[in-house]
């Protein structure tokens, strides 16, 4: 079962008197960044390997992103639609990388 967060609330009046309402998130066109943050424990080789595994990046690109995390404290590793950003963020966190997502400016 897909249990990723959904930005949706349902409300409607049923026979039993329950009120439900639907609120859809319409800001689907705004791209989202997936951001990996530096930490003192994860090995540089491991971070590179995880980026290659999750995004299918070639080693050179993944290593460059890893170096950016290491030197700047954070790096945008992917940009795209929100649902996929949530999925990738969850995947990276499952690999114990400090990760967040943010709207592109």
């Amino acid at each position, binding site marked *: 079962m897909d*249990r*990723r*967060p*959904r*930005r949706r609330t349902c409300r409607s009046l049923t026979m039993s008197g329950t009120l439900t309402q639907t609120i859809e998130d319409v800001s689907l066109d705004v791209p989202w960044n997936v*951001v990996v*943050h530096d930490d*003192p*424990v*994860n*090995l540089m*080789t*491991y971070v590179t*390997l995880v980026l290659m595994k999750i995004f299918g990046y070639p080693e050179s690109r993944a290593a460059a992103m890893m170096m950016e995390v290491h030197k700047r404290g954070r790096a945008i590793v992917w940009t795209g639609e929100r649902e996929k950003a*949530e999925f990738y*963020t*969850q995947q990276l*966190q*499952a*690999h*114990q*990388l*400090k*990760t*967040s*997502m*943010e709207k592109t400016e």
Partner: protein
Amino acid sequence: MKVAPTLKGGLRIDIETPLDWMVLRCISYDARGGGIDLADRVSAPMAGDEAAGDWQEYVLPELRESFTAQLDAIEAAIAHAGDGEEPGEVFITREDSDLWYGGLNQARLALEERYGFSSATLEEMTPGERSAWFRSQFYLHVQSVLLDHVLK
């Protein structure tokens, strides 16, 4: 203790002394003992996001479950390897390498949070801190072997 890759693409840990058994058992002890919520930690940068509430409710329990499962599997593998007195062997298959790497990472993370090794020198450490530092280095070594010979 010896740690070496196997011909089948996994890793073998030879446990030779009671001290080796103790060090291996410390993996889950260290990881669980710090009172650190790793799921909270890896998702901490999301705290300001508008979806943080949903993340807490739906994603974090799943992450916690997978992190706990890693430690459970490591404990089971060590228990299966022997009684803690006689020499034994722990085999880490290629399929299990991710969970071992993750469990070792949890142990290192917990020790780092508790003792802050990166800002201390060996001379300044108490005997307890030094012992934890050596365990952390051992976990790091096993992780490095896993990375070089199994995960890549």
